[in-house]
């Protein structure tokens, strides 16, 4: 695995994403749901909302890096607020 040049931060990053996917799969099996329509006027399931959250969070982090340029961990707070908003209203 040395050729993949693993680091702890990237390993944790992927473990968090894998953990989220497994958690949402278990939730999906245990508590089946029907898709709903939110402010985007598109049908979304929990998985869709997770995808929107992760993709949006990547752009929030990039925007923070480009516009603010310092204190990157604070971008995660914005991501959490964004995630809560997505799961509540989208």
């Amino acid at each position, binding site marked *: 695995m040395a*050729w*993949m*040049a693993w680091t702890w931060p990237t390993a944790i*990053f992927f473990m968090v994403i894998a953990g989220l996917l497994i958690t949402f799969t278990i939730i999906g099996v245990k508590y089946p749901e029907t898709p709903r329509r939110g402010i985007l006027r598109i*049908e979304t399931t929990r998985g869709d909302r997770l*995808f929107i959250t992760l*993709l949006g969070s990547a*752009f929030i982090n*990039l925007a923070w890096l*480009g516009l603010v340029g310092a204190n990157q961990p604070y971008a995660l707070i914005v991501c959490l607020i964004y995630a809560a908003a997505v799961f509540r209203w989208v």
Partner: protein
Amino acid sequence: MEKTVNQKAWFLVLPVLLLVAFSAVIPLMTVVNYSVQDTFGNNQFFWAGLDWFRQMLEDERMWNALRRQVIFSGVILAIEVPLGVLIALNMPKRGVMVSVCLVLMSLPLLIPWNVVGTIWQIFGRVDIGLLGHTLAALGVDYNYTQDALDAWVTLIVMDVWHWTSLVALLAYAGLKSIPDAYYQAARIDQASRWAVFRYIELPKMTGVLTIAILLRFMDSFKIYTEPFVVTGGGPGNATTLLSIDLVKMALGQFDLGPAAAFSIMYFLVILLVSWVFYTVMTNLDQQGGK
């Protein structure tokens, strides 16, 4: 009778999972690992944090390549989609000519990308190429190796030649699926040709056209081989699109860290646009199904 539960079918998915893991997931993970480190070769890496991302976001070179890429994709979509629809509308609907037309339309799609590039690279040359030589004989000052505008026109015309068929064939499939009853109703109502197109043909083609736009956007946004063979990104950097710039950075300069950061941002943009298209497409399907 009670259904028997059999989970063995999951094993049938395994080959696909393995294939995707080795061709996409593991390389992508490696790129993410590279994007936060620096290397001088020998498989030795040093932690760089978010420096490469910061550097790429401040890099004029990447923004210029992105600007060129957006213009390229926008222009070819603006030409190929209406042209493809126009061709599909004029293709024969029955008879022997249908097969002839379909085969002719499919031909450019069967040619490998680097061959298409080579064809146009020779075709456009002023000294030996049919197009370049003819234009020179007509007194047109055309040279795609020296003039940025000429290089752009050549790339766009090449892409239009290569891919309009795809849009046309998809649009044609959409048109063929319209039952005759719709046209009969339009004739009874004395609908004009434009009205038939606007209210019958276009709505019935929306699904396939969205697929065509999605495919053409993704493909054109990732285009590498053809412009690389024809112009090599030149003259200067005039046709250096994102993937050409990325390969120059990763393989030419061996700047793996910045190139990895660049790749991730490139990937995110494609993922975002593809998701938007996919969402629009599935929503259109649902509306159509109601």
